[in-house]
């Protein structure tokens, strides 16, 4: 194998515009708010969570835990669940992403998928822990399907969200 596969050449990217970041988070929130139900609900990747994780890895100085927390509160209200549970889970995922962002950036998007899977599993495990402590039954391992689908979406998400930051190669 080529050495480049292990340490991919870091692409030079422009800093993302704040407006674009806000727009993507809004789109993520709206995708989450679509009327999902049944099996689609279990398979639905948490669009908002992966967008938050993406920006905490790419723009760690501009993506804060506070933003994740606020977005989590909105999901709590929209889903009608215990107030603060998604807020806590989102803050946890973004916190881990902020801690690991340098390491994760060393890998190709496909290799990053593994880390993203771990982050999403941590997020779901946090929610599950809170839910179980309020006395509901575990609904089976299918619950974690959303983490897998979310992680599989990662390479596509990376491609889409990096488009505006690409620098035109200068030939000189």
């Amino acid at each position, binding site marked *: 194998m080529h050495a480049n596969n292990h340490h991919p050449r870091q692409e030079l990217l422009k800093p993302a515009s704040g407006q674009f970041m806000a727009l993507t988070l809004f789109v993520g*929130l*709206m995708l*989450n*708010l*679509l*009327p*999902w*139900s*049944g099996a689609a*609900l*279990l398979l639905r990747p948490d669009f908002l969570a992966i967008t938050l994780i993406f920006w905490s890895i790419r723009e760690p*100085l501009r993506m*804060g*835990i*506070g933003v994740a*927390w606020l977005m*989590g*509160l*909105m999901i*709590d*209200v*929209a*889903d*009608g*669940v*215990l*107030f*603060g*549970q998604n*807020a*806590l889970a989102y*803050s*946890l995922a973004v*916190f881990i992403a*902020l*801690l690991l962002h340098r390491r994760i950036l060393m890998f190709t998007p496909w290799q990053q998928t593994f880390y993203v899977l771990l982050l999403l599993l941590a997020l779901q495990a946090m929610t599950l822990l*809170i*839910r179980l402590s*309020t*006395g*509901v*039954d575990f*609904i089976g391992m299918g*619950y974690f399907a959303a983490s897998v689908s979310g992680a599989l979406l990662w390479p596509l998400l990376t491609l889409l969200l990096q488009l505006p930051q690409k620098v035109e190669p200068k030939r000189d």
Partner: protein
Amino acid sequence: MDQSPPFFKRGPSPLARFVFFASLSAVLMVADAYQNYLGLLRQTVAVVVTPLQRLANSPSELGDRISEFFISQAFLQKENRRLQQQELEHSAQLQGFQAMQAENAYLRKLLGARKQSDQTLVMTEILYAGRDPFAHKIIVDKGTTHGVSAGQPVVDDVGVIGQVTRAYPFSSEVTLLTDKDQAIPIEIVRNGMRAIAFGQGQDSTLGLAFMPMNADVQPGDTIVTSGIDGVYPPGLPVAVVSKIERNAAVAFARIVCMPSAGVGLHKQVLIVTSDRRKEYESQAAPLLATPTQAEVKGKGKRRGEGAR
């Protein structure tokens, strides 16, 4: 000396921030779970979220509209015929009902009991099913501005589907009977035996709790609301008993019931907004204030009968 360039300023460390927000969430969760302090905060966030939610629902609503537009005439005619027939049947039943209501009012007057107030119903449309896979909830499009408040029962054309658990200004959240530990006081039509049905959570069934082994329950028994709780109006169909397990190792019989009303079938449900609880308390107040010896005895006897 604050000479470091803004480039290096990063504020509190991620850990500090995480600990801050985690403890904030913990406080919110405890306050939400054990006290209802957070109504106002929830309402405030709902003001922002509800319009977004409506926006997110609009594509599927548009899809519904379009498919409604292309509905076939044959289907409409068939439906029209069915509805006309149903209306005839209902009007026949209604005539009997009116006679019975008049008779009931007369008998109540004879007994000196107060008139039961008429039910006021609010027609609502289901906006979407709750997205929490652990809970059985739906969100409907009427809220506190339409007189809906938490605790009111929700019914469809077949029977009870659940209870309003949270009311926002323009929408409210309905917890279905099948939600885990959602309780409803019921009565078996065949023998008038009272019990409490609890939601079972995952498998969309109800269970009758604490029923003795020899309880007179048979598969196929219809169960209706008993109305003794003062929340649900009496006599609404709730479920049908589907399975009874009498296992000697457990103290109680395990009775599984299938709910009669189905949420998946319709887009509209009715919320019963008349406050029966207040009415009930005002009726019960004189009785509770000075219980005479005879009344106490009478009550005990009645309770004994009910638990038979």
